C-alpha cells in the first residue's frame, strides 16, 4: 500500500530548520537562504501540480497563470488599495480558486492533449491580461513598491526570516498533501488517473474531484505568487509567462511526478539551476532545460526520486 514514510520527512524538516545556520558558517553558500526562498516558493506550486498531474493524471501547462494571479492580486491590493498583505494573499487565493473552477469545469472534461492545449491557452491569455491591463498591473514594465510582510509585528525583512515563513508554509502544505495522498480522497485521485471508467463505476464523482484538485493546485500557485510579490517587492509579466509554466512541468518531471518528494526535489534543483548555476548559459538556458526534459523523459521517466528504486529493480533482474 502507498505509504509515505515519516523518517525522511523528519530528516528533511531538520535540514530545513538548520540550513540557514549551516549557510552562515560557509561563506561560499551564505546567500543560499535567499535562493531557498525561491525554491520554497516554487515548491509550493509543484506540490499542487504533483497532486494534479502525478497523482490525478491531469495535465496543466498554464500554472504560471495562478502564480501570477496571486502575485498581481497581492500587488494591486497592497499598493493601490492599502490592503493588508495577508488579507490580499487570502483574496488572491480566493480569486485563483474561482478562476480554477470556472476554467477547470469545462476543461477538465478534456483529456490528454486537449487538456494540455486548453490550459496552455489559459496561461497565455492570463499573461496577456497582465501585460495589457496597464492601469492596474503596470503593463509590461510591471509594478514596484509592493510592501514586505510582517508577522505579529515582526518585519520579515531579511532573507532568513522570509525563508522560515516560506518553508513553514511549505512544511504545512507538504503534510497536508501527504495526509491527502494516503486517504480515500487520494486514492480517488489515483483511481481517476488509472481508469476514469472504473473510477466512475466505483461511485467516484470524477468531475468534482478533478475540479477540486485543480482548484487546490491553483490556490497553492496563488499563495506562492503572493509570497513572491511581497518578497521581491516588484513584479512584471515575464515572470508568469508560458516558459515558467513549462519550467514547473520540468520541475516535477525531473523530481519525479509520481511522488510528492519529487515536487520538492525538482523545485529546489530547478530553482538553483535558474538562479545560480545556469547564469553562464544566458540565452542558452532554454536549451539546457530542453535537454533536461528530454533526458529525464527518456532515461528517468520516474524522475530523480524514482530512479533509485528503478535501478534496484533492474539490478535484481
Amino acid at each position, binding site marked *: *500500500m502507498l505509504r509515505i514514510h515519516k523518517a525522511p520527512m523528519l530528516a528533511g524538516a531538520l535540514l530545513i530548520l538548520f540550513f540557514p545556520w549551516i549557510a552562515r558558517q560557509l561563506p561560499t553558500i551564505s546567500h543560499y537562504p535567499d535562493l531557498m526562498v525561491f525554491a520554497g516558493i516554487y515548491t509550493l506550486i509543484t506540490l499542487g501540480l504533483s497532486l494534479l498531474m502525478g497523482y490525478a493524471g491531469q495535465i496543466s501547462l498554464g500554472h504560471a497563470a495562478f502564480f501570477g494571479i496571486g502575485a498581481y492580486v497581492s500587488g494591486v491590493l497592497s499598493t493601490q488599495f492599502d490592503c493588508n498583505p495577508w488579507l490580499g494573499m487570502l483574496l488572491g487565493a480566493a480569486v485563483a480558486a474561482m478562476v480554477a473552477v470556472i476554467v477547470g469545469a469545462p476543461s477538465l472534461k478534456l483529456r490528454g492533449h486537449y487538456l494540455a492545449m486548453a490550459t496552455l491557452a489559459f496561461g497565455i491569455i492570463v499573461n496577456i491580461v497582465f501585460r495589457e491591463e496597464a492601469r492596474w498591473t503596470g503593463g509590461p514594465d510591471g509594478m514596484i513598491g509592493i510592501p514586505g510582510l510582517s508577522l505579529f509585528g515582526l518585519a520579515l525583512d531579511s532573507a532568513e526570516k522570509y525563508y522560515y515563513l516560506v518553508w513553514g508554509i511549505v512544511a504545512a502544505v507538504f503534510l497536508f498533501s501527504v495526509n491527502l495522498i494516503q486517504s480515500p480522497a487520494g486514492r480517488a485521485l*489515483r*483511481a481517476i488517473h*488509472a481508469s476514469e471508467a*472504473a473510477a*466512475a463505476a*466505483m461511485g467516484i*464523482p470524477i468531475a468534482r474531484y478533478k475540479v477540486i484538485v485543480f482548484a487546490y493546485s491553483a490556490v497553492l500557485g496563488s499563495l506562492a505568487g503572493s509570497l513572491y510579490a511581497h518578497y521581491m517587492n516588484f513584479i512584471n509579466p515575464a515572470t508568469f509567462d508560458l516558459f515558467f509554466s513549462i519550467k514547473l512541468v520540468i520541475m516535477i518531471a525531473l523530481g519525479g511526478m509520481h511522488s510528492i518528494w519529487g515536487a520538492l526535489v525538482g523545485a529546489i534543483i530547478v530553482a538553483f539551476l535558474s538562479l545560480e548555476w545556469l547564469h553562464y548559459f544566458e540565452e542558452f538556458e532554454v536549451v539546457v532545460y530542453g535537454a533536461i526534459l528530454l533526458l529525464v523523459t527518456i532515461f528517468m521517466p520516474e524522475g530523480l526520486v524514482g530512479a533509485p528504486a528503478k535501478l534496484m529493480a533492474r539490478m535484481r533482474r
Partner: protein
Amino acid sequence: MAAESVQDPILEIEELVMAFGGLTALMNIDLCVPRGRIKAVIGPNGAGKTTLFNIITGVFPPTEGLIRFNGRAISGCKPHHIAALGISRTFQTVELFNNMTVLENVMTGRHLRIRSSFFGSGLALPSLRRQEKGLVEQAMALLEFIGLAAKRDIMADALPLGERKILEIGRALATDPQLVCLDEPAAGLNETETEAAAHLIQAIRQKGITVLLVEHDMKMIMDISDEIAVLNYGEKIAEGTPREIQNNPLVIEAYLGQGGGFDIR
C-alpha cells in the same frame, strides 16, 4: 415467456434503443432481471452486450427507452449515481487501478460507503484515520472471500489475467452492490480459472446479490445461469431457461452463423 412472470424484478429494461450515429447497436430491447438470480446475456461478438452494460451503468444515455432499478427510473443518470444506487460492474477489457496494490483496489471500491472529504483527509481528522483502519479490515475480508488475501500488497498489474479478473469482481463487490454486471469474466481464462470464476459467481448469488452475466463460455453459462437472454445484431432473439435456450432453433442458427465458433450445447 419467463421474463413476464417475474415476481420481483430488480432491473427492468423497456424498449431500449441505442444508436451510434447510423449504427443501431440495440433495437427495442426488453429485459427483466429477477432479484437474487444469475441472469446471462449471450450473443455473438458485436451483438450489443457491452453496450447494454454501458447503458445500464450510465456510461452513455440510451437513445430511447427506460431502465428501472428497484422500480426507479435510472436511464440517463451518471455512472457514479448509478453505482451509489447499488449497481456495480466489471469491464470486458479489465479496468483495474494499475497504479495501486490489490488491497488498495478493493479499498477504492469502498469509496461510496465511506466518508472522503478532501480537506478532512488533508487535515488527517482522527475520525478519518479510524475509518481507514476499518477500511483495511473490510477490504481484507473481501480479499479472503475472493481468495486473493495473500496477494494484498502486489501491484494490480503484476497479477496474472485470471487473478486480475477475480480482483475486478472483488472491487465491484466492495461497493456493496445489489446488482453486479460481469462482462466476460472468463474470457482468456483456462479451464481451472474458469471453474474458479464460476464458483465465485455462485457464491456472490448466495450472498443475495443479483448477477447479470455476459459470457462466451457456454459451459459456464449453462451451469450457473437461472435465465438467459440472447442478443444478435442488437436484437433480443430469445429468452428462457438454459434448457430452453439450448433447444431454441433461432439461437442455434445465430451461433452457427458465426461459423460454428460456439457450441451452444
